[in-house]
């Protein structure tokens, strides 16, 4: 026992050094490059670029569509988690395994196949076209891609909580005469809310940053369906580094804000338990 405290220490300092070297080289230095570039611009110029009409329209498309995708997945994900945990039916395992497809499938493939299927002569888009609904190459297409990319989050955050939740509370509520609806609102939903909100926030964050699937399914037209990450690439292609940096910094700040919110929700959820 006398030897052990010294030995692991030597091993650990080694691991520490590699960890920090790696983080500095591949994470801190690149992040600093962005911050330093943003700092060299005058506040007036940053404001001018950040509130440029095209930039403003991309925030609208990016954040609002990601929010709608996150909320829709909040509802659908909750139902999906419920069905996968509480019900037994044939094919359940396949459904469960398929939930992770958006994590495993490269986004370029997702964008490609979604844009084909939801185009006006595609399998699903063709069914919507007679009603005047166009999906591919419109903002609705951006929404479909964002729903796809953020689909697993709510399911995967809610599932473990639901699995550990006992059915006793529900049964007690029932036996005391509560309706199914009341039982759901008063007994089942409250302990699940932190998990649902965490999943929605994670999905939102992922959808905001998404590039691959959206760039393929969208028409990328300013003021219509152009998202902020595509605007960054367009600015870079025009060698407008200041423009790219400012829009990139806005995206980065929003991501950090969402990360903070997720941590707060989780801290709140822990206190709840």
């Amino acid at each position, binding site marked *: 026992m006398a030897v052990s405290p010294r030995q692991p220490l030597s091993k*650990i300092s080694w691991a520490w050094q590699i960890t920090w070297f790696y983080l500095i080289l591949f994470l801190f230095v690149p992040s600093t490059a962005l911050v330093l*570039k943003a700092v060299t611009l005058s506040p007036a110029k940053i404001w001018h670029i950040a509130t440029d009409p095209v930039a403003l329209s991309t925030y609208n498309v990016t954040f609002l569509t990601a929010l709608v995708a996150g909320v829709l997945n909040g509802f659908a994900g909750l139902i999906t988690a419920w069905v996968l945990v509480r*019900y037994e039916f044939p094919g359940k395992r396949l459904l469960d395994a398929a939930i992770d497809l958006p994590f*495993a499938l490269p986004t*370029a493939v997702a964008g490609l196949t979604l844009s084909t299927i939801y185009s006006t002569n595609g399998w699903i888009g063709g069914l919507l076209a007679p009603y005047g609904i166009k999906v591919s190459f419109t903002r609705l297409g951006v929404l*479909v891609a964002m729903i796809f990319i953020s689909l697993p989050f709510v399911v995967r955050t809610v599932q473990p909580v639901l699995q550990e939740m006992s059915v006793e509370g529900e049964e007690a509520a029932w036996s005391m*005469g509560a309706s199914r609806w009341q039982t759901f609102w008063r007994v089942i939903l409250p302990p699940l809310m932190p998990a649902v909100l965490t999943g929605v926030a994670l999905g939102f964050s992922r959808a905001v940053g998404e590039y691959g699937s959206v760039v393929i399914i969208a028409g990328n037209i300013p003021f219509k369906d152009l998202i902020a990450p595509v605007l960054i690439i367009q600015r870079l292609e025009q*060698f407008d580094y200041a423009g790219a940096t400012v829009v990139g910094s806005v995206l980065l700040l929003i991501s950090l804000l969402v990360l903070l919110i997720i941590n707060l929700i989780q801290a709140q959820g822990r206190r709840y338990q």
Partner: protein
Amino acid sequence: MTAELPESKSQATAGIDWVKGGLIAFVVIYLALLLFVPAANVFYQAIQGGWPGMVKVLTSRLFLNALKLTLIATVISVPLNTIFGICAALAIANKTFRGRTLLLSIIDLPFSISPVVAGLMLILLYGNRGWFGPLLQAGGIKIIFALPGIVMATIFVTMPFIAREVLPALEESGTEQEEAAFTLGASPWQTFWRVTLPSIKWSLLYGLILCNARAMGEFGAVAVVSGNITGKTQTLPLFIEESHTQYDNQAAYTAALLLACLAIVTLVLKYLLERNTAVRRTYH
């Protein structure tokens, strides 16, 4: 109250099957519209042109170059991330120190940053007009629009995968066995190979599978730094996008089929690991 109880309960039980059916139907339709139909479409579109069409794409120079570049970038970035992930987990696991939570958040940070922003950072750093641009040009080193940039972009977006899988496994297995090995005279290296590694192998494999899938499929970050020079700095996802914009459906879907197969293998391995080992399922 007591008189009503059996009635209300039987009502609820009778109603449940209807609700159950409705909810299952909803989930099946929801997943079909977003996952199953799009996945089936990849196979359908790729096979539509028949074997000759697929073989022609698979043997084309552009496709082979893209495949080669994707494999090279993956073979470099995944092992580097593995070393980092294991080291970070060893350094953090079973220890309490100030700023531990902050460090964990920092390691997870790349998952929150848009891949395009990650690519932008590398351009601002190593691009011709970037901070190190003049220095690199003087030294004749090319990072942006070349392999090193693609590797760095891939490393950035896949950095947390291994660390966040191995860390909980290390915490769960504790330090007792390692300490026992030390006291019995094993060197740190021996202890790592004989004691530590076997206790984390399934979690490590799980992280590796996810890291590999993301590395091979990364699009946004690579699109920014690669310059997408056809036949030179074009990875498979970029090949798919370019084929698509040039209306070469056969090429786009043949490459997509290959990556879709990779995704299915990933899902199957992930499923088997979750079912047969103590690996806990995580989400990113």
